[in-house]
């Protein structure tokens, strides 16, 4: 973290790196500051921050917040040498909390974070002195998002006005091309004709009314290309699989990433996983892990779009999943703007576009699960078959020898071999059939 932004980043509410068009963990830059603030108002403690970007210098700050003026108070600022070129940020503060009550959620949060950020080492020493370690299972990281200009459908009147104030464009045609993503010469011309706005009109000369009409026209126009998803940073199927395997050690995992989609001009990508067996517990429901922009969502599960898809729209029986199966579903939605239903940011709204993507993604992994399950059942059936023959044939041989008054018990190995051969043939056939569909 650059040294000069540290006081504001930790001591000024609403200051942040979030006001750009790319996928970020937070939205408004509140989380870190709120933690610091809460620590300060409950213990009147100070916050110590040590950070380096890996240069030869390392900075140390001791801060408090001026709550009335919304300003950081720097109590101490020191520059240290950083011989080892350490790279990172340390934040220390004291806060009051009800740990026994919060513990389950905190541990859930860490575990789920470990799933969705499998390339991170997480260490947690809790107030009782217990050490929790979540070790990284990979050093691969997803590609970071790139910043992008807005998509026309994602614009509102306020934003458009701000853009017009700041633009250097002299014509509307140039304005459209320069400030919106995936709008070129042709699209700009076509749209301006549709909106009945002159191509050569100076954007700064647009009246209030014209701006409102322009935004309404943008909303109605369906000729824009769908939003560019390069501003998103999905986890990717390999990393998601790694995370699930690492934390839940299931017998089977299938993951799937949907192609980018959009709602209201905001691109989003849905990634899902389904895991079966192994250390996944058997419960009377399907375990659901929800993530938004790589952050676990822990509360209000039943209101979430993924819950609706998993429990109401999916017909699991169709995929050979029985009601008491050890199964977990993972849904990661990353977007420029996650469609949270409330400001609490705990659950995602069931917008049709999102619901559709989650459902289709889940169907895809469920299909793979169904193939796995039917193969597994087939193998189990065949194994049971062989077990039955192995149990009874030797008995028949022994009993019949005694009944016939013979000393020597006849050999059933040949018969068992022919059954085992049949089992192998059977399973190969099964695989062939599955491979073809």
């Amino acid at each position, binding site marked *: 973290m650059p040294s000069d932004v540290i006081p504001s980043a930790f001591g000024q509410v609403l200051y942040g790196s979030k006001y750009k068009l790319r996928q970020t963990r937070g939205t408004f830059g509140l989380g870190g500051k709120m933690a610091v603030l809460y620590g300060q108002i409950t213990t009147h403690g100070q916050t110590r921050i040590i950070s380096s970007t890996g240069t030869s210098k390392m900075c140390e700050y001791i801060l408090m917040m001026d709550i009335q003026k919304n300003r950081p108070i720097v109590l101490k600022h020191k520059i240290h040498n950083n011989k080892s070129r350490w790279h990172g940020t340390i934040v220390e503060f004291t806060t009051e909390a009800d740990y026994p009550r919060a513990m389950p959620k905190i541990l859930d949060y860490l575990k789920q974070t470990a799933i969705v950020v499998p390339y991170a080492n997480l260490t947690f020493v809790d107030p009782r002195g217990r050490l929790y370690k979540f070790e990284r299972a990979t050093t691969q990281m997803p590609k970071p998002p790139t910043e992008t200009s807005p998509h026309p459908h994602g614009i509102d009147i306020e934003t458009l006005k701000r853009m017009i104030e700041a633009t250097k464009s002299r014509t509307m045609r140039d304005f459209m091309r320069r400030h919106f993503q995936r709008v070129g010469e042709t699209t700009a011309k076509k749209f301006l004709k549709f909106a009945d706005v002159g191509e050569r009109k100076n954007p700064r000369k647009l009246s209030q009314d014209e701006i409102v009409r322009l935004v309404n026209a943008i909303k109605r126009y369906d000729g824009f290309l769908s939003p560019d998803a390069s501003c998103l940073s999905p986890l990717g199927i390999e990393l998601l699989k790694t995370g699930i395997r690492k934390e839940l050690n299931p017998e089977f995992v299938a993951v799937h990433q949907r192609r980018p989609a959009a709602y209201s001009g905001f691109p989003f990508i849905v990634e899902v996983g389904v895991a079966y067996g192994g250390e996944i517990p058997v419960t009377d429901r399907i375990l659901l892990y929800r993530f938004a922009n790589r952050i676990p969502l822990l509360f209000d599960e039943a209101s979430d779009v993924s819950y609706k898809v998993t429990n109401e729209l999916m017909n699991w029986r169709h995929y050979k999943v029985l009601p008491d199966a050890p199964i977990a579903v993972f849904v990661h939605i990353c977007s420029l703007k996650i469609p949270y239903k409330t400001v609490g940011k705990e659950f995602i709204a069931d917008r049709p576009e999102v619901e559709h993507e989650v459902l289709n993604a889940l169907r895809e992994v469920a299909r793979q699960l169904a193939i796995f399950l039917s193969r597994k059942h087939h193998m189990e059936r065949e194994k049971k078959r062989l077990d*039955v*023959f192995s149990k*009874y044939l030797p008995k028949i041989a022994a009993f019949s020898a005694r*009944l016939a*008054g013979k000393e020597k018990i006849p050999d059933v190995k040949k018969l068992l071999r022919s059954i085992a051969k049949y089992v192998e043939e059977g399973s190969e056939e099964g695989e062939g059939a599955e491979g073809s569909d």
Partner: protein
Amino acid sequence: MSRKEAKRAKEPKGAIKERKLKVLNSLQEFGAKIYGQIASGDFPSVKMPSRSINNIFYDQKLRQYILGNKSVRRSSRNIRHIRPLTQLVWTGMFVDELTRQSKTSTLRDVFYSAQAYEMSFTDQQESDNLITDLETVIGYSREDFNVFPEERSAIFGDLTVEYTLPGYEGRRLNLTSHPDGMMIGPALTSAEFISCKADKVIAIEKGGLFTRFIEENVHKRHKALLIHTAGQAPRATRGFLRRLNQELELPVYIFTDGDPWGMHIAMVIISGSANAAHLRDLNTPDAKWFGVYATDIVEYKLPSDKLTELDIKRLYELKRDPRYEGKLWNREIETFIKIKKKAEQEAFSRYGLTYIVDEYLPTKLEMASSE
């Protein structure tokens, strides 16, 4: 009765021993067949007549139910058959040893013994079915291979038998020795007949009347062996009645309550049951039912009860039953339906306790023997 059997009847000694050998042979053959199949690399299997309802037919000549041509195959190649087949072979082995050692056991014993061989039957029904399968395969009834149900019927009369049971071999007993009668159990059914002063057998449904007959010296006065069937005669008793009839050439008379159920007790002794269609030698085709008839109820003005709905339903069933052919049966069924009454054997006590022995029995015997 065939000539051969008639000849044997005159020389009773050895009939039991001979039969036991046949049973053991049959069991060993079954074992050898399975053994041979495995030895030559085939999945062992066994074929036997189907006992399903559509394969049970009434044979007019044999005057009993028999199985038709349909057969079923139990093959160890089939996952659903391998367990029952194993159980069948085990059961064969188990009863073979029983028979060799002249030990008896019950159906319940079989159920439990299997557990020692990790061959547990799921329930008693399964093990009972297996015993029936084995009967079908080897063609002998379970009493022949020493599996007995609980015994409850008894015999009394001037018949001397010689036990073949281990520990009692050669010991002889006259069946008048005990005034309560002797239980028809494994020891008696495996005994050889030595000498018999009786010239007929009377099978009686009810225990009270059996005792009365003994008290009133019916066995002496009518030179009869008395048998208490205790309701529906157990198979061992049915087999024993047949031996008395075939080996000793004694006519058999059956005396039951005057209702459709009593009538059917007689019929099962005469023509066997559909359940035993896979077996021979359990029925006594020449045995005769001599009462209580429906016509007796009218003739003797016996105290009677009204037939219940169930009784009447049963009568219509019997009417359709192929075993109930012939004038006597038709007449009695029709009379029951007409008078809608039934009477117990004890009903004769209305005319004094000995009336049945002094008056009714002689009349009936005379009628029966003159037929």
